[in-house]
């Protein structure tokens, strides 16, 4: 017997890649649970100063 699928996704990790996965899924019709162990989302990227090769501010 095939069990019924659930239209939601759990994303583990609230860094740049987790956040964007969650956004894409939410914007395309899925319910998303974003799970992050720390007190804030943003991950390592939020702690960087600038990003290569454009020297844009990471925030």
């Amino acid at each position, binding site marked *: 017997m095939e069990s019924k699928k659930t239209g939601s996704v*759990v994303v583990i990790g609230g860094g740049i890649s987790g956040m964007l996965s969650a956004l894409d899924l939410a914007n395309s019709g899925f319910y998303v649970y974003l799970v992050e162990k720390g007190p804030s989302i943003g991950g390592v990227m939020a702690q960087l100063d600038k990003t290569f*090769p454009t020297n844009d501010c990471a925030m």
Partner: protein
Amino acid sequence: MEYPQAVPLKYAINPDVCLKLTKDKCGTCETVCPADAIDYTMTEEVLTITAGSIILAPGFKPFDPSKFDNYQYANFANVVTSMEFERILSATGPTMGHVTTFPKLPAQPKKKKDKLLAQKRKDPKKIAWFQCVGSRDVNKCDNPYCSSVCCMYAVKEAIIAKEHAGKDLDCAIFFMDMRTPGKEFEKYYETAKHKHGINFIRSRVHSVTEDPETGDLLIQYVDEMGQIVKDTYDMIVLSVGLEISRETRDLAKKLDIDLTESGFAKTASFEPVTTSRDGIYVSGVFNNPKDIPESVLDASAAASAAGDALAEVRNTLTKEFPAVPETNVVGDRPNIGVFICDCGSNIAGVVDCPNVTEYAATLPYVTVAEETTYACSQDAQDKMVEIIKEKGLNRIVVAACTPKTHEPLFQETLKNAGLNKYLFEMTNIRNHNSWVHKNNPDIATDKAKDLVRMAVAKAALAQPLKEEKINVNASVMVVGGGLAGMTAARSLASQGYETHIIEKKDCLGGEALKLWKTAQGENVQQELDALIKEITSNDKIVVHTNTTLEGVDGFVGNFTSQLKTNGKTTALEHGVAVLATGAKALEPTEYSFGKDDRILRTLDLDRMFKENDPKLDTVQSAVFIQCVGSREPQRPYCSRVCCTHSVDNAIALKEKNPETDVFILYRDIRTYGERELLYKEAREKGVIFIRYDVENKPEVVVEKESLKITLTDHVLNKPVTIHADLLTLAAALVPRKDERLANFFKVPLNDEGFFVEKHAKLGPAEFATDGVFIAGSAHYPKPVNEAITQGRAAASRALTLLAKKDSLFTSGTIASVDVEKCSACGVCVSICPYNAPSFMAEGRFAGRADVNAVLCKGCGLCVASCRSGAIHLRGFDTNQILSQIFALDEVS
């Protein structure tokens, strides 16, 4: 709070060190918190969630170099990690962006002594970066892979350090191979060398000692000429690698997914974001070391893979907020509410907020002026809705931080209160005021009043604006039937969208048809066959072979493209487009290519392997030359795939016959990520790597019995000659430089001819033109797994647009023409970068200008250039701007 930009910006208690929680002492925070937000009794809760898919994006931890006794990170104050240096460079970091050395602190620092020592901090004159700390190293640690990002971040840190500390700062980067194989990376590296004067020294430093008096760091290394060099630096930055934490490995074990030896999730090249367990996907560094744009691509790709598996239950659990009916305020007297935000102490610490609030209440049309601690907090938002309803407010002004981040939030609040979201004005009394005038609180308070007065003057004239609905055609056009294009098409079709693949050749597959195997050893042709079969048997996908694109009209949601198949032209209507036109191998003009059939390109060698050519069994001496046409002035980029490809083929030759002499002549070996393991394997199998300089390239002489290849050996510094019977040139991957296609969709090409994406970091699979997406090597050369990842990512980005079918609107702040005043001069038509204005074809005002609301981006170029004053930018109308300027002139 981890750092000032943390989201949410809230304090959290660390339960491991909190005295109240560990020893039941202290408890100060509870007594001082004015919001009563501290609750020590909260405990961990276990929630059970039912979900259809899981995406793992747990990230990495920076390698901890404490255990390396030769670099003395744990003991020398001025040996720091790259992550720490990143915080030193940051304006919100511990030194506020000032690059300083750290004084040696006594074991038990006392306050006064600290202060004295702090004065001894000095601005460094010389900083060195050590590469590959915790990467490409199996002697001191167990990380045989390359972390992929450290070369670039070290270059970046050196450039930024010089920006902060002045150009006299001496920056040196000690490296083994400089790995800059990403888009625009090579140019960045060249700029660092030639424009910023950063020294690149090819050497691994043996050890660091410290001058106990001055704290200076003494290093010793062997330079390229074999000489021992001693040097002194003020600061040493260890470019630490990316590592998978114990915690993540445990999580993987719990979830029962396979990992590589180094702890990364195991994935296949043709399903690059799918773990070994059904329904669990992986994204970011846990899926091999990678930089931000690749993590962003992974994110969208994982979303696409997770979404494809759940296609039939899409939209079953999403919830929609009930829309609040909009109150009609046209013709009503302005009734303005002003909200002044303290931003904690960010604003209130400098500006006298109660005073500004009191002042705001006296301004014309203002009926409510309120001060809030955090205007963006949920409770403040709820209260705002309540006040709007209660007092019947019809214009709102918020004086707080930047509209760039917070305007959408407040506009949402207006909508919830039944107001049109354009009846809102935000003024920035933080970034533009309290932050920059923190030493002049009186002036800052006066300036805040000026800003509020101006905002009120503008808001009083605000009118509700309408957003036009955009109809989205639910079909997709994919240009290019290679790996990336097919992957995007497959994903979009599985979500139920009719997808058309346009391929100019007579079959699908693209350049991948020429590949033998992937870096992970998968047989490309088998996998490719399966994918092509999937595509051709999918009834949602229409494949147009022998077809070229002749023209494109329209805009996001409503494109019409002209397709030409065997001389016959047809029109295709589609809502979005994916460009995946790929790249091709360069036809080399050097190393005697084309003059002898023993001289091949990488793909020719692949064909021999594919066909199991018996000639390969008799090869006695094979040479590979890297960077043929890449990383040269006329093509200043790295082709990314060639190092791994040659190393892989070299191993295959050695496996065929261990007696074959195999040489790889290279400039830097760029086997990034776990591809480094192949490089290691090749060396273990006896492949000989010889480095050459671009100024001193190998010379190839075709002789009857062998190919004579001469170059200078970098270790011996003497010329060596190799007699080979097979020479493979790792030819550059060159873009198709399709200017016509770029023009059709108004998307840019870079100097080399690769398409330029929307944002180098955050928008790598889409264009600035709405509704147009990019995948594969047309963006930048990439191997199989990365082309597939980007194909999936483009599909995911396109899906978010297609899914908005009924809720895609234009912006309200767009240009509109007062036709009575229009003199039909045509300046707006010619000046607009988005082709939004055009001459009306018919009706009473035929010949005069009209602005297409969907194409208009609200930039204001046409408004400023209109000589008749006929064009207005809604929401930024002339009378609003003028009243703001006049308000500035009034004295508070």
